[in-house]
């Protein structure tokens, strides 16, 4: 019976992706599911001038030689950022032209996802391990095309997929956020999107809802309160539920065996919503720590066991 390892919100951390692939062997998992938000949030320019390279990390600027650039790029990728070598002229061009930055972001993100797909093939090709990825609200739509072309990784978005007798539906779309990201919509439309898949599931007692956004007021959706200026309130300690009512309604209506979520990194947890076990393993991608959930499925019991881990 399938043993699932689920992780989410890697946000470009190559270290976490490598761990994700290695989790199959480490946890004896035969199914890997990545829940979305694969792509990073920032480009770190490595500026070439006068035969050396200048880079700013953590507020500190350092100058390195050509031989050291590889190490610096590794450090940057580890945190989930995209290193990009460029000239001073290119730096100023990106600084002054938002549309160029947008283009550049898309290029580096898609290159990153492509590299991850190749790593998956190199690492787990022929192993029998199945890998599913469902891009999240922070991932541009073009990411799907890259995943779709992968020989090793299956795209989850909008699909109903069979996993050893269990059925998984997936979406990375979320309700609206203050950041107006790539896959956001109203609760009504999100509900319709989920319902279109959920109603096709033959047996909800053997169903997995892989929905990036957690259910509203589930304890898996508590995010720090912010004001209209995106400033954290009350020292960051005030929490508010920001999950989706549509996701909650779908879970309460269909009562799948398992629901997998991410989106809110700080809200790690596992809760029961009726018959459904809902999990958000959280995310610590910036530290290079892979937070995940191991779920052992069983044909009779449904879920034999689950465990949240910090790899």
């Amino acid at each position: 019976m399938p043993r699932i390892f689920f992780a989410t919100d890697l946000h470009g951390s190559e270290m976490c992706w490598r761990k994700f692939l290695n989790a199959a062997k480490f946890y004896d998992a035969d199914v890997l599911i990545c829940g979305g938000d694969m792509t990073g949030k920032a480009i770190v320019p490595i500026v070439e001038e006068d035969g050396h390279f200048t880079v700013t990390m953590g507020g500190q600027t350092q100058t390195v030689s050509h031989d050291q650039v590889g190490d610096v790029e590794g450090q940057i990728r580890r945190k989930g950022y995209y290193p990009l070598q460029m000239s001073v002229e290119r730096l100023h061009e990106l600084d002054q032209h938002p549309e160029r930055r947008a283009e550049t972001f898309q290029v580096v993100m898609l290159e990153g996802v492509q590299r991850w797909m190749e790593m998956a093939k190199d690492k787990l090709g022929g192993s029998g391990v199945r890998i599913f990825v469902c891009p999240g609200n922070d991932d541009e739509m073009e990411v799907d095309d890259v995943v779709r072309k992968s020989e090793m990784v299956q795209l989850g978005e909008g699909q109903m997929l069979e996993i050893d007798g269990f059925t998984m539906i997936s979406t990375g779309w979320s309700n609206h956020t203050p950041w107006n990201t790539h896959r956001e919509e109203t609760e009504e439309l999100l509900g319709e999107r989920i319902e279109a898949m959920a109603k096709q599931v033959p047996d909800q007692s053997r169903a997995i809802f892989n929905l990036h956004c957690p259910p509203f007021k589930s304890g898996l959706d508590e995010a720090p309160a912010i004001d209209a200026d995106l400033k954290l309130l009350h020292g960051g300690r005030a929490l508010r539920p920001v999950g989706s009512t549509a996701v909650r309604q779908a879970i309460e209506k269909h009562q799948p065996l398992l629901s997998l979520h991410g989106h809110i990194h700080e809200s790690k947890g596992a809760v029961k919503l009726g018959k459904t076990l809902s999990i958000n393993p959280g995310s610590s991608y910036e530290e290079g720590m892979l937070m995940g959930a191991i779920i052992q499925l069983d044909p009779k019991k449904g879920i034999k066991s689950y465990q949240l881990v910090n790899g």
Partner: protein
Amino acid sequence: MADTTLGTASGTRPGLFLRNATGLVKAWSTFDAFIYSFWSVNLITLGLYGMSFVYTVPDGQVLAAILLFGVLTTFLVITYAMLVSVMPRTGGDYAWQSRVLGGGLGFVLSITGWWFTLFLWAPIYANILVVQFFGPLAYTLGWTGVAEFFSSKTGIFVSCLIVLAFVSIVVTMGMETYARIQKICFWIGIAGLVVVCGLLLFASPQDFQNAFNREATSLFGAPAGAYQATIDAGSKTFAGSNFGTFAFGPLLLLLPWLAFYLLWPNWGATLYGEVRGAKDIRKPFWSMFAGLWVTVGMVAVVVILINKTIGWNFYQSANAAYWNNLFAVEGAVAPPVPLWPYPVMFAGFLVDSHIFQALLIIVMGLWFFGWAGTLFLSSTRVIFAAAFDRVLPSWAANISAKRRVPYGSLILMIVPSLVISAIYAYRPDFTSVFLDATAILALTFLATTVAAVILPWRRKDLYDASPIAQYKIGGVPMITVVGVITGLFLLFMLYQWSFNSDNLYGTSLQKTPNSVIYFVATYVVAIVIYVVARVVRKRQGIDLDRIHHEIPVE
């Protein structure tokens, strides 16, 4: 479609290009976080209560001791800020100890501090509520019966119930609502403190003696000359104290008393897993540092004003008379004013109006209500973390759907606290157990400090990837250096609490068998819980060792 660019980092040359993505927020206000830390080292509630015991070290210069404590606790603050920066995890001490020292050790050491020992703090809070609020307020309003009820065993127990109810309500309301309440209490409480300090500043010692004598007769029915009578009562068991005396040895002996209120600027560290931006070490550091040092500064002012107007020898004599009579120390006699010597009430005496005095006590009571709500907040987070790790049952982390109340962890805190409160109220022979409440938390901090010291080697990957990896002193990781200093500081106090030959703190192991039994029992229970969890989870196919093992990267 989203706007995919957000701009650049500050400076003439951009060092970072950001795109629009979930979670990119602006920094939280250090002031807001400072308030939480400030309340944790509460000058009025814990501070005045703790300082009422310094008469036990009559040659200890309290002002110098406070400053020394501030300096040493700064190392604790740096240690915790660095840990938050490396691993901003919900659960704080539990998470750090588990991931660095190992799951079993981490669970036992942190759960005894943040769960089992916090039971003891509920009745301590209740006693503070009685001596700083119910008692003085009732006497000032002429409600002698009410005041006497709250000094009885049942009155103390009722106060425990009030504290537990208040804390439960705060946890139920959530931190956002309580943070607002804290802010209101902060500003009104500060205004009240300014009034108290102003009264003490502008009154002369003779003014105070006259006012004390007047109110002792008016409110408590004491004979004339209560000021001198209080000094006389204290002198039966107390040799007197001079504010100007300075000796290094006694100064060090004051530190464990000051720990009662100054050791907790890191109280909110268990919550940092929920704080975006916590990885920036400056935020948690400045929040805790400011909370500590603003309090140190205020304590210094209050102590100087007490010495100036109330008189240091009188204040310490009043404390000695009150506590030694309560603890039935041989030769002790009852002071003419049967209440705990509350400097706020004393300052109020300087205005010949019971209405004003009552208002001042109510206003200063906000120092209690803005603070007490945090009693179980950190504990619930530690319980959450243990439940997520499957060491505790999953229901321990349950939250109600409608009001988002963490009822599982609340039950685990409230029920044992009720039992402990009853023991506190009705079994005075267990007093030493409660005096140990500070020491056990210090032991938990020590374990975390050990984790910090060895972190750069035990979790090299995390350390190297963290912002603090750049901080070194003489080639040694800074977290190790500050951790060692913090550890020595904590070890000194733990030694004094456990082995002081004069049983100065009422906690020496040889003299307090009940205390030893209680705390050994808590560690045994913690070990049993962990072993049972391992066995049960193994049968379910869950290996608890796996939680903390890092997946290879290559």
